[in-house]
């Protein structure tokens, strides 16, 4: 019936959600002992396909075969029982429990008889130690997970997936919060798993990674499979063009902004937290895009949040237009012409159940309050809708709830929110994170336009091409310290990496 040479075969999988055909007859064949990259823009259906495999969604049509055997997967425990495990994109730790309980959750080793079985803590501890030794992970099994860094939690999730001794492991964006050293470590683990015949389905947006570690590449677009190719035949441009469905001649727009005089001066800024940023000094010019590069943990977010009054400063000063300012709260920051687009759009950006125009207007309510305290609703709607339209946001109506928009369009609404406050300085923290390739270009165009209009922009980015392609100057941080500021023409990937890794 079906080929035994595949570890996993998903045949003609279809899944429909109200109004959307999320998967349209998608077939995926994964060979044992290989890394199979699954690529596509956000919304292409990768995660939906994997959720069908893991029993989180029930497909409307199609069949799943594991090693040639037809498989019925109705929930996560079926999938785990059949040797399919998954590292989820959103991390899933239980914060107030320790490492080993997180790893063996759902299958604790037990001792005792009948209904009076107790959890065997000693065995669980030993098993965890063995597992970590095998994977070269250095974390004590009884540490509280809430006390670990994101990248350590990521490695625990990886260990957990390995511990199921699965023959198929799905990794959904496993490196999104890892440092480059940890990525190397993950790749060693992946190679080891490959040698043991494990098939790995690898979802990532990072082309360099995909081309380095995968054997096969399957590309999806709009719920359909475009094709599967050997990774050796693929290039970054080829993958992007197949993902987007058109040739991408240009990843970044031309910029015509001309930086002029200094608008903001940051002098010797030090956080009140011991492990955060220290002695940061830099100048920002009018009409300039200043990129901030660095690894996870470089304290870049903490720095811009401090500029915006969200974090306490111990020493140092900030001057805007040559006058020292005290920014104690986001309200102060707004008054001084600052705006902050936060890193986590979903948790600190959007109000999911409010409409698009309410989301856009929310930071600017002060201006719509009339003397007798009621809101000038018409003006609010008009201005919000204008701005949202100006940024070419695709939304069925301004009344649509923002949670129903794609990531890129949500981001445009958030940009509209801050542009309504007429800021002079925009702090953009990973402005294109989780946004697909097509929408990224539009966000870049907006940023370039703003700079041309004379707005000053500080942009944190962990994507090297974006950082280099969009910035007039690149400031690099490492472990809370500023390790260098590169002029546009000196900035290269190697130079940024060197500064980012400097201790």
């Amino acid at each position, binding site marked *: 019936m079906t080929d035994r040479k595949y570890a996993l075969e998903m045949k003609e999988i279809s899944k429909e959600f109200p109004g959307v055909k999320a998967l349209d007859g998608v077939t995926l064949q994964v060979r044992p002992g290989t890394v199979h990259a699954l690529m596509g823009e956000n919304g292409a259906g990768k995660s939906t396909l994997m959720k069908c495999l*893991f029993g*989180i969604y029930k497909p409307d049509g199609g069949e799943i075969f594991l090693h040639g055997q037809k498989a019925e997967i109705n*929930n*996560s*425990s079926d999938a*785990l*029982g059949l040797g399919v495990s*998954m590292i*989820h994109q*959103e991390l*899933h*730790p*239980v*914060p*107030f*429990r320790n490492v080993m*309980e*997180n790893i063996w*959750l*759902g*299958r*604790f080793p*037990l001792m005792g008889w009948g209904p009076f*079985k*107790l*959890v065997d803590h000693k065995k669980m501890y030993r098993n965890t130690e063995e597992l970590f030794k095998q994977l070269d992970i250095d974390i004590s099994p009884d540490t509280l997970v809430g006390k670990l860094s994101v990248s350590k939690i990521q490695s625990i999730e990886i260990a957990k997936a390995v511990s199921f001794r699965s023959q198929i492991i799905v990794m959904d964006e496993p490196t999104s919060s890892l440092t480059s050293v940890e990525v190397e470590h993950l790749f060693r683990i992946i190679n080891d798993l490959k040698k043991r015949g494990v098939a790995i389905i690898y979802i990532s947006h990072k082309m360099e990674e995909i081309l380095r570690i995968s054997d096969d590449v399957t590309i999806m677009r709009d719920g359909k499979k475009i094709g599967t190719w050997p990774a050796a035949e693929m290039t970054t441009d080829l993958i992007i063009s197949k993902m987007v469905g058109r040739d991408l001649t240009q990843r970044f727009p031309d910029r015509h902004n001309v930086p002029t005089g200094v608008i903001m001066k940051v002098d010797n800024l030090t956080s009140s*937290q011991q492990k955060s940023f220290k002695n940061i000094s830099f100048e920002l010019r009018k009409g300039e895009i200043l990129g901030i590069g660095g690894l996870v943990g470089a304290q870049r977010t903490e720095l811009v949040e401090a500029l915006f009054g*969200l*974090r*306490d400063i111990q020493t140092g000063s900030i001057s805007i237009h040559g006058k020292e300012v005290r920014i104690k709260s986001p309200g102060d920051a707004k008054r001084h012409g600052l705006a902050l687009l936060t890193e986590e759009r979903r948790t600190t950006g959007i109000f999911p159940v409010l409409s698009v125009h309410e989301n856009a207007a929310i930071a600017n309510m002060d201006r719509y309050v009339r003397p007798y305290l009621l809101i000038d609703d018409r003006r609010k709607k008009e201005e919000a809708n204008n701005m949202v339209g100006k940024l070419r946001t695709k939304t069925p109506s301004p009344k649509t709830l923002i949670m129903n928009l794609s990531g890129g369009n949500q981001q445009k609404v958030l940009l509209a929110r801050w542009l309504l406050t007429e800021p002079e300085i925009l702090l953009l923290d990973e402005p294109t994170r989780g946004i697909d390739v097509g929408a990224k270009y539009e966000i870049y165009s907006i940023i370039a336009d703003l700079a041309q209009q004379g707005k000053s922009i500080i942009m944190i980015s962990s994507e090297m091409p974006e950082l280099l392609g969009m910035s007039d100057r690149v400031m690099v941080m490492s472990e809370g310290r500023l390790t260098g500021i590169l002029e546009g023409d000196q900035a290269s990937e190697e130079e940024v990496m060197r500064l980012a890794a400097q201790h």
Partner: protein
Amino acid sequence: METKKIQNFVTQNAIYIVLAVLVIGIAVYDPNFIGINTLRDILIQSSTRVIIALGVAFILITGGTDLSAGRMVGLTAVISASMLQVEDYPRRFFPDLPHLPLLVPVLIAIIVGLLFGLINGIIVSKFKVPPFIATLGTMVAIYGINSLYFDTEPNQSQPIGGLREDFTNLGSGSIGSGQYSFPFIVLIAIAVCFIVWVMFNKTRLGKNMYAIGGNEQAAKVSGINVTKYLILIYSIAGALYGLAGVLEAARTGGATNNYGNMYELDAIAACVVGGVSTTGGIGTVPGVMAGVLIFTVINYGLTFVGVGPYWQQIIKGAIIVAAVAFDMRKYASKK
């Protein structure tokens, strides 16, 4: 470094320190407070409360809440009392009921509690009704059911009295006699605490409970049947309220449909003061025990030294808010 250690110790053990300070404070004011009799009274008064609080703790730790606890205590108190009256009592609830073995009505009451807990669990986990609303509904409905039962012929809403001695003995009897006697009810409460402690810390059920409250999605994708465990946990809580209802009737020697009114709020207060997080995932049995004791000590101790009941309410309210404010500091991410 030393001061940091001390600070840490204080934060981690605040609840026990508060308890100790309270006891010492009251004792300094009136040294007569320290004594075997005081201790026994406080323990007896804490016994049913701790059983209810542990039931509520189960649910709070899963990230839920239970407003129906008090009404379940009332219902099960009435049910057990109605079947355990002496045969020559003039106004029996069931005039022709033969002498039942003590265990039968007790088990019936516990099972009734368990069944209503089961209903709560199904409403919450299957129909996805937020626990606050689900148990608000059952709280109101259970009072109705209890009142209907209480109002049947020939009882017609008369307080149930004339309880059998073997039954009231559960609540007021003790092992040994005189000063060093040990009340049964305290013994039962201690046994329940121990069993619940084992469940929380040593069983799969307990671990899954913490996991569900800490991160339900994580529990789901780890292959835990969250629905099943939630139903199980609500049922266990219901059974504990059932036991508490039985003991409450036994301790007071009677029952009416108003028994247990607002006990759920006392239980929730004791839990949060004892360090159980209302957002789920955190809580310990010793913490809940200390939380219950603090409130009993306030009640008993402040009455002992002559503080009026209205002042006691104000002090209790302040302690609830202060305890949680203090607790938030422990977990709040520092900016």
